[in-house]
């Protein structure tokens, strides 16, 4: 689909940071951006959400790291990456030189790790804001994932918000693997999150019928792709209903503009396209175009008018 003059105002914001397009990459699904350059105008998309970075370089887990599942996939990468030094030295300058907005995802296993990362990212050129990946095991709590405990999640978010660049919106990325996502959303918002990214992958498992062992080196992995879209939409719907003024970066199985539209109607003011990029490397740009057309067809003058629209009608 080529660009259409839809006349819809597609601008939106992540917290207080304005972006010209509501469609972003998803952390871990576009590396640090450069690989998508042949397929997408990176300066035109909302932002590149970088692969979650930790303090030190990480090898990631042994292979196999993925298994295809019906309309989805399971991954267990283990956050392979260059560490914050590498990101600051190579990847962020590459993006900044080209004028590509970077929404930097940070991860850690201790509250202090997150804070240190936020600190190091203060004032870095091209950095639009921070996405806090709290779907990591908390070493101080027997490996329980931060995102699964409102208190641990809030501790991370308030530590990050305290030291992060005041110009950087801080989004907390929530896990759907909780009994009550609204309570986690409320806790991290109270702790200072400027917005919420939702959802991260669902914990899943696949067993290889030949080896009769789990396929993944890491045993369990994260389920993503269209298969999880109804769960992601439900999470966005519930949280927007409970916290209508908290901005949401929606994601989970978005493949087309109509998928993105569902997230916007449910309450997301921006969306990330993750696994679909593996199927279609130009998906982020295509989803933007398709969403613009879909909004125009429905008579919306601006994206902002459509955010949460499915709730307003429910009254």
């Amino acid at each position, binding site marked *: 689909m080529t660009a259409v003059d839809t006349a819809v105002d597609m601008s939106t914001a992540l917290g207080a940071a304005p972006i010209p397009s509501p469609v972003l990459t998803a952390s871990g*699904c576009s590396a640090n951006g450069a690989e998508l350059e042949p397929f997408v105008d990176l300066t035109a998309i909302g932002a590149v959400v970088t692969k979650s970075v930790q303090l030190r370089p990480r090898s990631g887990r*042994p292979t196999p*790291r*993925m298994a295809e599942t019906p309309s989805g996939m399971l991954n267990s*990468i283990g956050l*392979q990456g260059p560490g914050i030094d590498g990101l600051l030295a190579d990847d962020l300058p590459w993006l900044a030189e080209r004028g590509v907005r970077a929404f930097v995802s940070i991860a850690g296993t201790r509250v202090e790790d997150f804070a240190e990362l936020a600190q190091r990212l203060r004032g870095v050129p091209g950095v639009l804001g921070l996405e806090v990946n709290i779907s990591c095991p908390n070493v101080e709590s027997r490996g329980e994932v931060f995102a699964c405990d409102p208190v641990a999640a809030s501790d991370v978010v308030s530590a990050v918000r305290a030291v992060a660049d005041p110009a950087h919106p801080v989004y907390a990325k929530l896990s759907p693997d909780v009994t009550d996502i609204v309570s986690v959303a409320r806790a991290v918002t109270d702790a200072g999150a400027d917005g919420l990214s939702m959802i991260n992958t669902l914990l899943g498992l696949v067993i290889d019928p030949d080896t009769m062992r789990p396929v993944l080196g890491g045993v369990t992995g994260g389920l993503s792709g269209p298969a999880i879209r109804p769960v992601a939409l439900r999470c966005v719907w519930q949280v927007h209903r409970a916290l209508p003024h908290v901005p949401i970066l929606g994601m989970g199985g978005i493949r087309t503009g109509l998928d993105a539209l569902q997230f916007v109607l449910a309450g997301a003011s921006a969306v990330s396209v993750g696994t679909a990029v*593996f199927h279609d490397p130009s998906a982020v740009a295509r989803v933007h175009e398709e969403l613009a057309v879909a909004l125009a067809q429905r008579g919306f003058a601006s994206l902002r008018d459509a955010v949460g629209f499915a709730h307003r009608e429910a009254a």
Partner: protein
Amino acid sequence: MTPLTTPAPRAARPPVQRVVRVAGRRPVGDYVELTLAAPEIAERAEPGQFVAFAVGGPTSGLLLRRSIAIATARDGEVSVVVSAAGPGSTWLTERQVGDTVDVVGPLGRRYPMPPPGTPALVVGGGYGSAALLGLTAALRDAGSAVVAVVGAATAGRLCSVDDLGELAEVVVTTDDGSAGQRGWVTDAVARVIGRAGIVYACGPMGMLRAVAEQATAAGVPSYVAVEESMACGIGVCMTCVLPVVGEDGRTRFSRSCTEGPVFGGDRVRFADVGTLPWDVVGADAMGVVQP
């Protein structure tokens, strides 16, 4: 031990994504060869690169592309040889002339060329032999004498024997003796490696490992095209890694889609594939300590 190889260079031109027409289809032994009318991919393709197909059509529940090595690329057409293994590759083998397929490519890095005139040995296993066609032609054009060892489990799983025969001296082996010499490609390789100044291989991992070890033992540089499970094929997901020794001598989990699929045979730590050795860069942050 100083490696005999240098890492394969990046491709000269970036890949494209196109919906292309199937211009030809024919069974080759147990496989199906598809020819695609894909001029932009054909003109970019270098020997050793691959393409990635969306599979299953508009109603598909298969989310991930399937990577398939490029066999030939000329006159605006790209050919591939596909083995019907699971649902995705089976769907591909069922495409008919006139159907369209969604393909991204060319992807990955090429087989590096040796100094002109270097006698070369190319070794293919199963459908892997097809991926050596472009390379063999390029070698011959550059003045190399080429010996091709082509093996498979059975005669039906051999591939590209005649096409390679037009470009090189071909030795055929099958495990069951149903064609050529009975035995493994490594038996044949052992007999001819003395004449080679460089070795190239494409095929199953076990074969790649054995051939790479033979070459390295003989002091001959080797390049292998590995086949790791890939989610994206374009370098963004990190699923396709294996431990590869870099130019600085340190081992990294390298992406076989963008840093490969062609690696120096003496740089791939075959024995450690599927494990996390302590000396891989960043293994310490995963809690793996030096034993």
